[in-house]
């Protein structure tokens, strides 16, 4: 999901996640989503908020366990913790460190891993690249693409860096003042000169 500042990207994400009240309907697989954040998580939608929102005073492991708040299968939870510590090796290395002491990139990995702990069908990421070094962003996006492929987890990602987003996405939505101004495959977007000059700026 692309769009200029103030287009309503974060608002859209927060509305889906249940962080604000809304009118109308938000549906997943044809079923309406509930309005309270913890119920949204229960229905299989998990948000990695802008600014990451890791729990700074808790350790990496504890953050991951909080991510499994809606689950009751203890064995599955432990298996998933092991899995994400392998997928994001830095989390494995720093599992007993408090999250507040991690670098920005490490915290972003933790935020994504924590969101995945609830086994979402849809993962929402609000500007995951914000404030990260380009190499870290590449690593993160490559991992997201791999998870999307192996687990079939759908992902809706807000991104300021249009080129980066279009490398990853199968569908691109362009948001402008609260409405979808254009949508299509990355190829469509790159081919459409009008959209490109008006919104992507190159």
């Amino acid at each position, binding site marked *: 999901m692309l769009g200029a500042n103030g287009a309503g990207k974060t608002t859209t994400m927060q509305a889906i996640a249940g962080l604000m009240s809304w009118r109308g309907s938000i549906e997943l697989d044809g079923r309406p989503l509930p309005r309270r954040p913890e119920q949204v998580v229960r229905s299989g939608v998990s948000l990695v*908020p802008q600014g990451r*929102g890791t729990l700074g*005073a808790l350790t990496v492991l504890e953050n991951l366990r909080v991510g499994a708040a809606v689950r009751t299968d203890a064995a599955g939870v432990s298996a998933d913790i092991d899995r994400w510590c392998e997928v994001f090796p830095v989390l494995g290395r720093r599992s007993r460190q408090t999250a507040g002491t991690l670098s920005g990139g490490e915290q972003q990995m933790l935020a994504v891993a924590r969101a995945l702990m609830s086994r979402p069908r849809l993962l929402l990421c609000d500007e995951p690249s914000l404030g990260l070094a380009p190499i870290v962003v590449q690593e993160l996006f490559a991992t997201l693409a791999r998870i999307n492929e192996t687990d079939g987890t759908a992902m809706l990602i807000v991104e300021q860096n249009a080129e980066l987003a279009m490398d990853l996405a199968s569908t691109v939505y362009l948001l402008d003042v609260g409405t979808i101004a254009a949508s299509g495959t990355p190829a469509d977007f790159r081919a459409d000169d009008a959209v490109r000059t008006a919104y992507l700026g190159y």
Partner: protein
Amino acid sequence: MDLFLERLISGLTNGSIYALLALALVVVFRGTGTLNFAQGELALFTTFVAWWLTTQSLPIWFAIAAALGVGFIMGALIERLLIRPVAKRNDMAVLIVALGLFTGLNSLAGLLWGSETKIMPSPFPNGESDFISIGGARLYGDALGVWGALIGLMGLMTLLFRFTKVGLHMRAVADNATSATLAGVRTSRILAIGWGLSGAIGALAGVLVTPLAPQQLSLTTMFSIFIAASAAALFGGLDSLVGAVVGGLVIGVLEAMLTGYVSVIGGSLQQTSALLIIVVILFAKPTGLFGTTKLVRV
């Protein structure tokens, strides 16, 4: 020497009570970010419940267990019915509600049970001869019992916060309520449990202190204890459980030594010395001695 030891023992015993009530304050503060001014009066009310049950010739242990239960339920109900609706508006409103509860609970206790002083039985052996001698000082059974209660409670809380899902979720909500709720934590239930837990801890402090308190159980019993407990919680930085316990013990001992050795302070300036400690702490270290200046890298 034995006089010093006796003062130390009495300071540690009072300090344990302050620590218990300070723990109750910290549990609420960590969850809601509010200093619950009604904590002391809630403890008073539940102690009256325990006393009333003993007058119905029920055993003291049953009365204490019931008081803890009532404390839990009242704490949780107060959060759900009175605090949560106003907490959305602003923090000052929460403070005002707590102050209202402070006077309200006190008056309610007076209305139900009258203002005359009650004798609250002790759950521990506290007769004239129930002591062991240490270096010439007498260590009474009820002092030992209070220490044991504090140590036991600390153990239980450590288990709760370290090893249970509810405890983990309580810490998550205390750290960042929005993040916790995004992770699927039932924040509202966790907050109610936190208030309930602090109500129960307060009740424990109340039933343990009243048999020791010079004025026994009256409508003013908990006030000075609440002042000292607030000082203890502040001493520890308001968000640290260990800090609350250390703070409680330090203030208890300081108070006992000051009133014992500095004749000007005597008995009547006891409360003032606790308040003085609060002021000194706030001047010297606004985050308290154990308060977390949050370590964050961005």
